[in-house]
């Protein structure tokens, strides 16, 4: 049994239990237990009908839990042990689970964990490993999240924007432990696009595919960060790019632009350039203008300054940077990059080093320190001096 196929069954099985009268929190716990049992036993003894097995195992777990709970409280078991097995509308169930798990009342880390478990069908242990926290901590985070949304009816209209934000967070967690969260986010986004008619869902999927296509070229020897301009473009995944571009075109044709479509358009323009020098920066600046209009985000303003620097020269980029909040992460790195291009190597080296000291991840710190070292080396050779 393929673990991926098994995981895909999880939201539908939760939906079946909820329709049989289980509350969401108990149903989700029961399905998680059945899932763990399936992972332990199926490789040796796979069932003929995986979904039916999972439903009946989860229902048994649910009844056991409910009985022991009612026994503890000294009350009667009120659950119908012989529920009807009517036709199942898995589509609506799954979409509702997306909305519930990314409910706006939940803090993002909790929404993310709950989505991975109830919609993604990952085990608590896998989610914990991917986030480098103890399993008990993750279990607690998930049960607190479920308590928080206990009063939310499953058929309440959902907020797609928070669902998309959660999926994008999952995507950006990348790869750690034995679970590829970027690939998982793409799977969940594909599923969402099949369930929802919203162009922004397609925009997010396109954005993920276009970024994912570059993954192999993004790190060099020893996990070194390779910036876009220096990436080996022959290692980009052209099939993923073609798929991302097609999905984006379909979304843009609906004429309801949003931030994910605009970001995907920028990623598509990068993907489209055979070499870094052939990048259509003028069009990229136009998309940043759109993106800024939609989001007003200071980070977009910062990235736009980089694009202006490429389109109209580093002085124009520095002028655009004047409108950007200098406290932003990466501000100094961007300024260093633009200054280096104007020929002001001394200030560039200084700012790269400063950016390296303030970087929030080790690969980024190492990359920026190396950039500082590279500019320093150029300075030394220009002066004709070498370190002792």
């Amino acid at each position, binding site marked *: 049994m393929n673990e991926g196929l098994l995981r895909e069954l999880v939201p539908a099985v939760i939906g079946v239990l909820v329709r049989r009268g289980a509350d969401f929190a108990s149903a989700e716990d029961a399905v998680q237990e059945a899932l763990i049992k399936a992972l332990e036993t199926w490789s040796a003894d796979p069932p003929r009908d995986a979904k039916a097995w999972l439903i009946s195992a989860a229902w048994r777990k649910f009844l056991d839990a409910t009985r022991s709970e009612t026994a503890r409280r000294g009350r009667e078991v009120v659950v119908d042990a012989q529920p009807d097995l009517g036709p199942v509308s898995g589509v609506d169930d799954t979409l509702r689970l997306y909305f519930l798990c990314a409910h706006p009342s939940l803090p993002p880390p909790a929404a993310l964990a709950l989505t991975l478990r109830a919609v993604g069908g990952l085990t608590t242990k896998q989610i914990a490993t991917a986030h480098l926290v103890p399993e008990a901590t993750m279990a607690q985070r998930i049960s607190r999240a479920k308590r928080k949304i206990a009063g939310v009816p499953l058929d309440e209209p959902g907020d797609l924007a928070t669902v998309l934000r959660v999926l994008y967070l999952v995507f950006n967690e990348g790869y750690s432990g034995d679970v590829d969260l970027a690939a998982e986010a793409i799977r969940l986004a594909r599923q969402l696009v099949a369930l929802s008619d919203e162009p922004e869902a397609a925009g997010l999927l396109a954005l993920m595919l276009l970024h994912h296509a570059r993954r192999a070229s993004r790190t060099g*020897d*020893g996990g*070194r960060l390779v910036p876009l301009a220096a990436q080996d473009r022959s290692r980009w995944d052209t099939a993923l790019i073609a798929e991302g571009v097609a999905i984006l075109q379909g979304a843009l044709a609906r004429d309801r632009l949003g931030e994910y479509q605009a970001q995907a358009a920028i990623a598509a323009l990068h993907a489209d350039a055979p070499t870094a020098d052939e990048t259509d920066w003028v069009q990229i600046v136009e998309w940043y203008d759109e993106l800024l209009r939609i989001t007003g985000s200071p980070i977009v303003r910062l990235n736009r300054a980089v694009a202006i620097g490429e389109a109209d020269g580093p002085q124009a980029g520095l002028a655009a940077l004047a409108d950007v909040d200098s406290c932003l992460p990466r501000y100094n790195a961007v300024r260093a990059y633009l200054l280096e291009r104007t020929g002001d190597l001394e200030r560039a*080296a200084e700012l790269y*080093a400063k950016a390296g000291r*303030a970087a929030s991840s080790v690969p980024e710190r*190492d990359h920026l320190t190396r950039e500082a*070292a*590279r500019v320093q080396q150029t300075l030394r050779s220009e002066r004709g001096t070498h370190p002792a």
Partner: protein
Amino acid sequence: MKYLLLKHYRGGPAPVVDFLPMDQWTPEEVDAHVKYMQDFGDRLQESGEFVDMQALLPDGAFVRSDDAGRPPVTDGPFAETKDLIAGYYVIDVESWDRAVEVAADLSAAPGPGGKPLHEWLEVRPLFSAAPADAG
């Protein structure tokens, strides 16, 4: 037995090698250092002695509670003179001698000219969870 290996930005014994900050090295020297650190981590994973590793940003502050109803008191960012931790490893090894060996391995990370930095590392045993000879 678990040990904490502490790397200090400052506050340790006087350095034995006086080296320039890393941004003054050549890019190749930076790469060699980064690769050494990665290989060191990989070796610990392979030997089954790795528990945890974290690098710490230089930001932060000291914090304490104040009287009821008053907000917490903070002191910082850290003054230049104070001891400052850059990062740590937690290792689970069979003896103190092995912990010292691991720390020395880490301390031999290369700097300018490929020469070992010989940085001081603080090695501290962790209390064990259970009392000794509990059975």
